[in-house]
């Protein structure tokens, strides 16, 4: 099984991956506090992007409402902690099934009634927006005034209650990203993965070949929403405050899917690379604009938008396929 994970992977890719992983593990030793928060953000987006990629990149179902699963995970775990003092790992056991149920609900309705493509995307937005307005009026989670987790000064890290320093969250998200990467690789190399790709490429043909498309699309939604809910739990305990306007907002869903699209939809390394590029770009722009003394609200986002535009115009399939091709080319020349 483990051997099969590495089938066909060039040795240099393995070495490169191992080197990057070692670098990531060692990063907190020399990274400043600021760099660490940026890295946390990067691995958060890498992980969630990987989860989204299962649905879109593998099974071909465009979800524009992944903030829903982040929000459900985050709110469930946070509310259980605030109201009953129940820790995040137990909260995870409740939050993930809730998010999975929501995903399965959307998937069941959409796939049973043959809602596909853009219509499916709009349906996912609609449910996320529905949840946003709903949570705005849900008094148990403090509605639009926001849910706050109790915060105090921490000296140590308690992984069990997820109360601690940013470094703990960094390693948690790094581990999650690596685990998601390996899990996705395993899924892609399994029977399910091949079925997904068949569905993505041509659903009619897949059905004609005897694949139960409904079932495998449902599996994709369930895995993706469950994985995303875990990120929500971490989000809640990292930021310690939750507002429906922020957590469920459509712009959160868009943020989630930008990294895998820029990195390369359907590729394993795309979401990770995309998260590095986009978060790095945003932070660089912040720094650069501050350095030249530009303090106009919106200026950074305009540059960000222009960069996005150039990426999609120059590399419509994403950056990773291009990088991968390039690395192979240099190898041949040697």
């Amino acid at each position, binding site marked *: 099984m483990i051997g099969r994970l590495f089938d066909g992977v060039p040795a240099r890719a393995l070495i490169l991956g191992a080197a990057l992983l070692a670098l990531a593990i060692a990063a907190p030793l020399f990274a400043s506090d600021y760099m660490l928060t940026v890295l946390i953000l990067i691995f958060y987006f890498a992980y969630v992007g990987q989860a989204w990629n299962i649905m*879109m990149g593998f099974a071909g179902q*465009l979800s*524009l409402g992944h903030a829903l699963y982040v929000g459900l995970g985050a709110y469930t775990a946070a509310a259980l902690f605030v109201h009953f003092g129940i820790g995040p790992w137990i909260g995870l056991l409740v939050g993930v099934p809730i998010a999975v149920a929501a995903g399965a609900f959307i998937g069941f*309705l*959409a796939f049973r*009634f*043959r*809602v596909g*493509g*853009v*219509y499916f*995307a*709009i*349906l996912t*937005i*609609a*449910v996320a*927006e*529905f949840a946003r*307005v*709903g949570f*705005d*009026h849900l008094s148990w989670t403090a509605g*639009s005034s926001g849910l706050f987790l109790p915060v105090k000064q921490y000296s140590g890290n308690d992984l069990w209650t997820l109360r601690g320093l940013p470094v703990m969250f960094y390693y948690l998200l790094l581990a999650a990203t690596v685990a998601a990467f390996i899990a996705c690789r395993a899924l892609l190399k399994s029977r399910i993965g091949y079925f997904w790709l068949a569905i993505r490429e041509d659903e009619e043909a897949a059905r004609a070949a005897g694949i139960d498309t409904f079932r495998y699309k449902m599996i994709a939604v369930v895995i993706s929403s469950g994985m995303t809910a875990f990120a929500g739990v971490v989000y809640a305990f990292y930021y310690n405050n939750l507002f429906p306007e922020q957590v469920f907002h*459509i*712009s959160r869903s*868009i943020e989630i*899917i*930008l990294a895998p*699209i*820029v990195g390369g*939809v359907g590729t394993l390394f795309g979401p990770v690379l995309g998260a590095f590029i986009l978060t790095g770009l945003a932070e660089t722009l912040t720094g650069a604009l501050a350095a030249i003394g530009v303090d*106009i*609200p*919106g*200026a950074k*986002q*305009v540059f*960000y*938008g*222009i960069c*996005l*535009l150039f990426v*999609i*115009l120059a590399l*419509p399939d994403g950056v990773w396929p291009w990088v991968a091709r390039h690395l192979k080319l240099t190898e041949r020349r040697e």
Partner: protein
Amino acid sequence: MPLDIYLNVAVAGVLTGLVYGLMALGLSVIFGVVRVVNFAHGEMMTIAMYIAVVLFSAFHLDPLVMMVPIAMALFAFGYVLQKGLINPFITRPEHSQFLLLVAVAIIMVNVLLILFGPDARNVQTSYAYDSFQVGPLIVDATKLYAGIAAVVVTALLFCFFRYTRMGTAIRACADNYTGALVVGLDVKHLYALTFGLGAACVGAAGSMLVLIVDVTPPLGPAYTLLAFVIVITGGLGSLPGALIGGVLIGFTEAMAGLLFTPSAKSMFAFAILVLVLLFRPQGIMGKRAA
């Protein structure tokens, strides 16, 4: 609550819904013909709204009169956008188009933010507080004018698609892309025209809507979503459907605002969308695809 309150709110909702419908009409035309998911639709409308605000505050030009030039400006903008940016993407997968238009939307929102700041702007016309009274019914003059204008523009567009050669050619592109190419239609040009027409609808709708709601730069995404909800509810590719969908959503939002709380009104629009997708996926006026 007495009955006439419901009636008044319902009429106001229907009239606002007609303007929503005109905005959605633009999306329906673009989505139905070019098959591009225009995720910058609401943002294009905020641009139109800001043009109306600037024209009014600088030259005291009435937005309802300026509707035509604003629509023309948006037409040109839409034409250039389609010709320059979107045409190469028409055969690309949806997520690719999505990213392109999200990037365009991000740029639009933030350029508006740089130019106008985050404060809400509006237009105070001389007739802003006028109203007509018909029995127990009190109708806002502004909303009535806007609603009538929306119906007129829709009728014009309907005639264009039905009775002109160019309208027929555009419908041919929508029906059969390859076929249109084979008979020698300049599809890229027609697509750009279509996108321009859709943008013009949004421009007209924006110059009316600025009379009804205050405009802020981040208003765009909410209206993009609303437009999609309306188009899918009304039926893709059906011009009367977009108007009917708009009226339905406008009515529902107004009633939800009255019966529950105004902040929860969009929940009901999304609930309608979910119901339509499940029980009549082709939309109220749409034809069932084979």
